């Protein structure tokens, strides 16, 4: 399933509906649906806040064999590789914690692979998650 979304936080409601429709069609398990919602929201929100570029983000959800595949394409985006962002240290005491960075850390943990490419002036993110028994 493919669709473009306006690059603002007001799109989140329709983005979750889109994921829900896909999950229903593919009969995804609750764990997978939660992971997709989280990963897509975190990356889309990053594109809204920091990405620059076009005012729409293209999203493609598919199942390939036993893997869920998510593509996010953002034309004109600034170069920023989320796969190179620092991991959160889960053992840090409260006083040393900052809110930033949690989202990308979670994306990398709930998905099996996250790859980034900046090509032809656009950011291309590809995420996969092994579905097992879905």
């Amino acid at each position, binding site marked *: 399933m493919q669709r473009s979304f306006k690059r603002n*936080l007001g799109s*989140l409601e329709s983005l979750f509906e889109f994921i829900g429709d896909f999950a229903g069609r593919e009969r995804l398990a609750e764990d997978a649906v*939660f992971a997709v919602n989280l990963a897509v929201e975190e990356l889309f*929100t990053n594109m809204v806040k920091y990405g620059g570029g076009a005012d729409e983000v293209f999203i493609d959800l598919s199942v390939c064999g036993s893997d869920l595949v998510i593509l996010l394409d953002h034309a004109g985006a600034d170069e920023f590789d989320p796969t190179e962002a620092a991991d959160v240290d889960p053992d840090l*005491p*409260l006083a040393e914690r900052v809110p930033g960075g949690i989202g990308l850390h979670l994306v990398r943990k*709930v998905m099996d692979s996250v790859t980034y490419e900046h090509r032809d002036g656009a950011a291309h993110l590809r995420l996969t998650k092994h579905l097992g028994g879905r």
Partner: protein
Amino acid sequence: MFDMQRGPGGEFLFSGRLDAAQVDRVREEMKSVQASCVVDFSGLDYISSAGMGVLLGVQKRLSDAGHSLKLVNLNRHIREIFRIAGFDNVFLIE
């Protein structure tokens, strides 16, 4: 859809989906919290890093004054991402 209410004991009752579009409301309503407080997640289906960041900010502010947030009734998905982020080390979670 996200909603937050106050329970009879002053606890916060979160429900629905707490995403990045909803966090301003949470930040605003939790500004007034000055003492230890419970946040009941029993109706909450989903949270992302935006909501987690707001709760972390409240926890840091309260901690400076010797208080804390207690988070209760997290579903297993939310409990897992809190564990991944190490939030189980900085919040009392029941």
